[in-house]
């Protein structure tokens, strides 16, 4: 009913914008409460995220991760599945990327290695999503519960592997050996250097192009393939899917595997790119942020790019903020990020009725004026 009355640009443009502003408003009060100037804080966040080359680099580097995890959540969401397991799938996916890189990096440069790395990562991530998917489709265990559990299992497994198996002997850190330089994805700095442009150093690497390619692929998958048609039908109405002769169980499993494979691409950005090795906890919550990104981006690739950019800016701007204003600790930055997630995700429908009413009043007034 309400969908009919609001034009799309308000639904996907104005409302999220107002939600972000509300989140910042509340954050501003919190900052005021600890005795700092909210305006100054916002200024630091914005300049930190977009004000200089290194900051932009970091923002886009975080954005890359969020695009992958956001797409992962969105694909599953279209089939009505809430994949909370992006974190674990990305973690295990990175293991696949790392293993492939470490076994081939002595003979191959990055451009030859990347298809193998992507395949290995996708296979690992998909495998990690497969088990919850199978349990959901064939045994009725809820995917939310099982994917959360699999995050913990992934974390424990990775600690075991890093501490006992992959660790470089004689080092303190539970991390694998560094991948050979030639096998690591070129950073954006290297790419620009080819054109004779010197930009600041940042972890941003060519994985961002992979992220954008994935956006296009996901868009094609969902709206231009039979599988996408089946995925969306299951999400909207599973009974209708059965009526249409779709094998819902198999489709659910395939969807979750695609979702896991997308999350695993974080491993390309991190393991093969920014960090150049497998290390503890490198996903750093990107899997969970992906949920908020997907919700805010309305599960559409374009929306996800925009939302990822916002969260990338929040991460980088937040780091800058706590760097520049010592009394704003990193915990407060988490509070600000949390507020944005709260307003854009959980409370996203809170202001909708009000906006609807205002819009309709305006609309009605305009109509009367036209008459």
């Amino acid at each position, binding site marked *: 009913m309400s969908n009919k009355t609001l034009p799309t640009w308000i639904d996907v443009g104005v409302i999220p914008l107002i939600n972000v502003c509300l989140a910042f408003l509340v954050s501003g009060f919190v900052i005021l409460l600890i005795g700092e100037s909210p305006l100054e804080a916002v200024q630091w966040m914005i300049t930190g995220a977009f004000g200089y080359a290194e900051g932009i680099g970091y923002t886009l580097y975080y954005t890359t991760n969020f695009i992958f995890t956001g797409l992962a959540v969105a694909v599953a969401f279209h089939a009505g599945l809430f994949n909370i397991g992006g974190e674990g799938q990305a973690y295990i996916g990175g293991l696949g990327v790392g293993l492939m890189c470490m076994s081939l990096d002595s003979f191959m440069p990055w451009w030859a290695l990347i298809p193998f790395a992507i395949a290995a990562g996708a296979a690992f991530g998909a495998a990690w999503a497969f088990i919850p998917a199978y349990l959901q489709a064939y045994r009725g265990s809820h995917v939310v519960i099982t994917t959360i559990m699999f995050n913990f299992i992934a974390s424990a497994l990775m600690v075991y592997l890093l501490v006992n198996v992959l660790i470089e002997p004689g080092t303190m850190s539970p991390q694998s050996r560094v991948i050979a330089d030639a096998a690591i994805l070129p950073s954006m700095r290297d790419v620009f250097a080819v054109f004779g442009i010197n930009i600041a150093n940042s972890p941003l690497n060519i994985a961002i192009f992979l992220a954008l390619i994935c956006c296009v692929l996901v868009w094609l998958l969902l709206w*231009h393939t039979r599988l996408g048609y089946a995925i969306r039908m299951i999400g909207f109405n599973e009974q209708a899917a*059965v*009526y249409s*002769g779709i094998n819902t169980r198999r489709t659910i499993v395939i969807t979750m595997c695609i979702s896991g494979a997308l999350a695993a691409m974080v491993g390309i950005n991190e393991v093969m790119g920014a960090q150049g090795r497998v290390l503890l906890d490198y996903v750093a919550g990107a899997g969970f942020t992906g949920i908020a990104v997907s919700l805010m981006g309305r599960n559409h690739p374009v929306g996800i790019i925009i939302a990822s950019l916002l969260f990338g800016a929040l991460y980088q701007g937040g780091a800058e903020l706590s760097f520049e204003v010592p009394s704003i600790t990193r915990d407060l930055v988490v509070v600000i990020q949390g507020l944005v997630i709260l307003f854009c995700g959980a409370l996203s429908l809170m202001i909708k009725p009000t906006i609807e009413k205002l819009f309709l009043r305006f609309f009605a007034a305009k109509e009367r004026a036209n008459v």
Partner: protein
Amino acid sequence: MLSQDNTSQGAARSPAIDLRKINKSFGPVKANKDVDLIVAKGSIHGIIGENGAGKSTLMSILYGFYAADSGEIWVNGKLTSIHSSKDAIATGIGMVHQHFMLIDTFTVLENVMLGAEQSSSLQQSKKSARAELQRLSEEFGLAVDPDAITGDLAVGLQQRVEILKALYRGAEILILDEPTGVLTPQEVQQLFDILSALRERGVSVMLITHKLQEIIAITDEVTVMRGGTMVATRETAETNKEELAELMVGRKVLLRVDKEPAKPQQVLLEAKNLTLLDSAGIARLDDVSLQVRAGEILGIAGVSGNGQTELLDVLSGVAAVQQGSIVLNGVTIDKDNVLNAKDFRHLSLGHVAEDRHKQGMVTEFSARECAIMGFQDEPEFNGRLLMDNAAVTEHCANLMQQFDVRPNNPHLKAANFSGGNQQKLCIAREIERQPKVLLVGQPTRGVDIGAIEFIHQQIVSLRDAGNAVLVVSVELEEVMSLCDRIVVMFEGRIVGEMAAVNADAQKLGLLMGNAGGDDSDNSATGVVS
């Protein structure tokens, strides 16, 4: 003294309900436009109109669910403002909803007094409520056991509880919203008896329905709504079905299905001893066998929930065969050869789902996406990797053209079409391929009268082309006029069969309630007693 008499007389003469210039809009949609309605005291007033005519909106305003944008509500000669159902009850208005608002695990007494307890002590309330319920039952002839568990009662009795609930709260004006949808013909008759009794005791009844024969059977006056406005009000005695149908639709309507006698040929669809158990182990289908021949329409009659849904699911491949078998166009499907809905379609079976919102379409999809449901894997809609979206759109546009679906816009969201147009799209999708066997569930549920005629014609012409059609409907009129042969289902079994020409509501009704179902049983008890 005199003046007092005058006022009381004045009040007695003033109508129970007097609505003046009611307006209500939802966004750009005007659901009610300057609606005036007068319901005389102690009368049964029918309100009739197609879906979306504004009947439900008007009643929701009267019962306080919505606030009118403008207009006045006068109850018993007094201007009132009703902001909630609480206000409505206080004014003496009671409502019996289409879907009952009863708690199945409570007793009748508990349901009746729920929310209207007279004392903070439960025992005390129960005692006084029991006495009151007793009085109401006797006064209006509404016999129900106050200590029965509500969920165990038959639907007709549950509806009685709803009426008692309203009366218990002091209702003098009773609104009934589509009350007969779930009742057998016998139960409908009982309901009408109750309504007559209420009228005699001065209760005013507003009956909202889309069934013309009910209006003719029971009401004193009838108001017709169309497109949010009040089109006409008539004394029931001075009108007839044809006139009412014309008023509802705005043009002349053919109420009878115009068709030649059937010429049945070879069997195209056969069900043999189908039995289906649900997850709780209860038999939803119990040894069902039937045959549908080319060139005939077989109707399945029955009160909703007696296995028709499950039968359609099994016959269309939505549910797997558990026991028994299906022979479709010479192919046997049983539990060793389980096929899904797509495979059934490949055996030239069309299936118009009973419930298009749950099964037959995806309301969030665009019309073009709905138009290929079940055929999404056909080569004509697919390229090598990607779907051929242009072909899908074109296909949908063609269907819309052929079956007069409005608005003719394949990109519009399915939810934004009216019920009739949604149904036309679903039927178009299934009929367009001229399936050898067509299953149709509730062909005209929630469909405007104008569209009903069209849909019936389509089904008949498919039959005349030599195909087999199986129709499931809870509308007896429809089954009798559309079908050539009728079987009746009760509790998952087939309890009777007859040619449509021999059928009447009385005979079918008895079978549907299984009252005359098992003659052998009746005679057996007869012998013993």
